[in-house]
């Protein structure tokens, strides 16, 4: 629920879905459809005014702030449209941030960051200032930052929105590649239907409601019950009821 009194509106109304293990999920819709809000709620950044999000049988709403911080630090990776890399810091320092937050020791950190940068092919830029990187490199850096803590869930908010199509395609390839390699679940918010078509499941939102669901392959979304997302590694349900 956003705004106050007369201006109040609900970004999400009734959203229910269940996603199987290791699936990739695209949430598509025009701006104002509530797709970002849904992602924020799944990521524990936002709280629904009604309904709840359940992780490990534990409602995110009932999580204490510290436990929520821990959930974000350990189980989530974020990739944003405008990268959100710290230009004045080096590639290494940017990628190391989630590990610092998760209190990983310095020695382990170095190794893990190197591995993550290898995956996104940025090893040669490890000591470059992030502001000196190209757009595609910045997004690859952001992806390295998102996967460095081996999250169970990678959240990508318009990951190609600020990139030209050629670079964007490469970034998307990389994301799906990594998702397959790590067995994480990928939740992508986009308005790009080509990109969405690459996901196992596409959920289209309009005015806060699901208007269509497309599935491909064996992975099916189940709309019969309340919203649930399961991932093999998460082994739990993320349930969203708006």
């Amino acid at each position, binding site marked *: 629920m956003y705004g106050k009194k007369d201006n109040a509106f609900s970004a999400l109304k009734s959203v229910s879905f269940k996603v199987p293990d290791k699936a990739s999920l695209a949430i598509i819709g025009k701006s104002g459809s509530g797709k970002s809000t849904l992602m924020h709620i799944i*990521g524990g950044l936002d709280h629904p005014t009604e309904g709840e999000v359940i992780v490990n049988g534990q409602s995110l709403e009932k999580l204490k702030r510290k436990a929520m911080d821990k959930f974000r*630090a*350990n189980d989530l990776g974020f990739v944003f449209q405008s990268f959100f890399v710290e230009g004045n810091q080096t590639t290494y320092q940017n990628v190391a*941030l989630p590990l610092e*937050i998760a*209190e990983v020791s310095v020695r382990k950190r170095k190794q893990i960051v190197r591995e993550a940068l290898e995956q996104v092919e940025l090893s040669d830029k490890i000591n470059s200032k992030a502001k000196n990187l190209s757009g595609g490199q910045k997004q690859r850096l952001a992806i390295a930052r998102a996967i460095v803590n081996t999250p169970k869930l990678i959240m990508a908010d318009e990951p190609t929105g600020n990139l030209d199509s050629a670079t964007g395609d490469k970034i998307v390839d990389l994301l799906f590649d990594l998702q397959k390699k790590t067995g994480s679940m990928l939740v992508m918010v986009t308005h790009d239907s080509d990109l969405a078509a690459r996901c196992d499941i596409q959920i289209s939102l309009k005015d806060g409601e699901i208007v269509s669901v497309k599935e491909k392959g064996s992975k099916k979304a189940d709309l019969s019950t309340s919203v649930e997302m399961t991932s093999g590694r998460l082994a739990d349900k993320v349930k969203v009821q708006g």
Partner: protein
Amino acid sequence: MKVTDTIKRSGRNLRAAKLRTLLTALAISVGGFTLTVTLAASAGAHMYTNNLVKANFDPKAVFVAKDKNYFSNSNGDTPQAYTSDLATGRGGTLQKELTSQDITKIKALPHVTQVLPTYNLSAQFVTRPDSTAKYTGSINVYDSAQKPSIKAGQLPDDLTNGEVLLPDAYLKPLKFSSAQAALGQSVVIQVRQLSGKTLAKTYGVVAVTTKSSLSLDFNAVGPYVSADEAGQLNSFINGGTVLANLVPTAIVRADSTLSADQLKAEITKAGFQARTAQDLEQFIGQIVNVLGVIIAVFGLITLVASFFGVVNTQYISVLERTREIGLMKALGMSRRTVSRLFMIEATWIGFIGAALGAGIAIIAGTLLNPWISKKINFGNQHLLIFKPAQIIALIIFLMLITTIAGLLPARKAAKLDPIEALRTE
């Protein structure tokens, strides 16, 4: 996030905004500079007064007077009751003075070894035999425990009657070619009664004294004679008047079994006013302290200004970095860590400012010390004495101040909503 990582990250954030960090730190450094100089000047002034008192007052000696107003400065707005020991005839405020009976009484106190009256005598003039050059001078009593600095000759344990110590200020007026040349020569001291009768006595110069930077001018410049000789001159000058029997003060010493404080207690018990060198040192020390406090207050006022400077800078920094804060929170950084990150930045600013201010103060002070000493006649002594412990304490104090200044902006950062923060472009 671990505290060490937080410290490193906040340090890096400051390096990323070098100019702003430096400018804010400079504001703090003004306070740091002022307070460092204040502490150093205060330490130097204390050491100087210590040395001053040590050079001019024998720590074993007790200064004795009779009037209770002698050591305080209150002259009294109401008239004093008359007593026969009031020193009528000296002019100024009438005060009770020590009579010869008092001197005898003090001498008879247990363990007292020496009572040295101070007479306050002036010569009519000082000259040389067969010379027309005549100069004024006070007649000072030679105190072997409080030896003046010498330029030529040897200081005896005690002067005998007929011997004199001549200050180097008389060399030229009395036409001695050098200090060495004056040794063994005769000088004439003539004194005069109120009635006009004069007495001229000839003395042999045993040593030439000089003024050290630490000597205080209690008396006008003049030759030193023995206590006995001064007594005789006093008898002549004040002969036939009430003053012949009175001395304003006396220096009293005891044997080693009594400390100055114990001796002071004894003398006070006998009904006299007494002060030790330590008392005087404390008195001067108080004045120095008051001056130090005044300067320190100015330093603290500049600190208040820089305090708000840090609040302002950090607040703007939080606003500028809203997106970064949002990202860090989205990545699971706790409120406490976000808050700590900004607090530690403020602490760093405090450290840089304090170290800068103290550093500049130490460098400038060390360079200027010789010049300052020369200007204010400190001799070899330095006005600014930098004590490492004090400076470290000051730096920690300033770090504490800026940390407190960082509190409000840090709270603001901690409370930022990550979604709102991430929307900021």
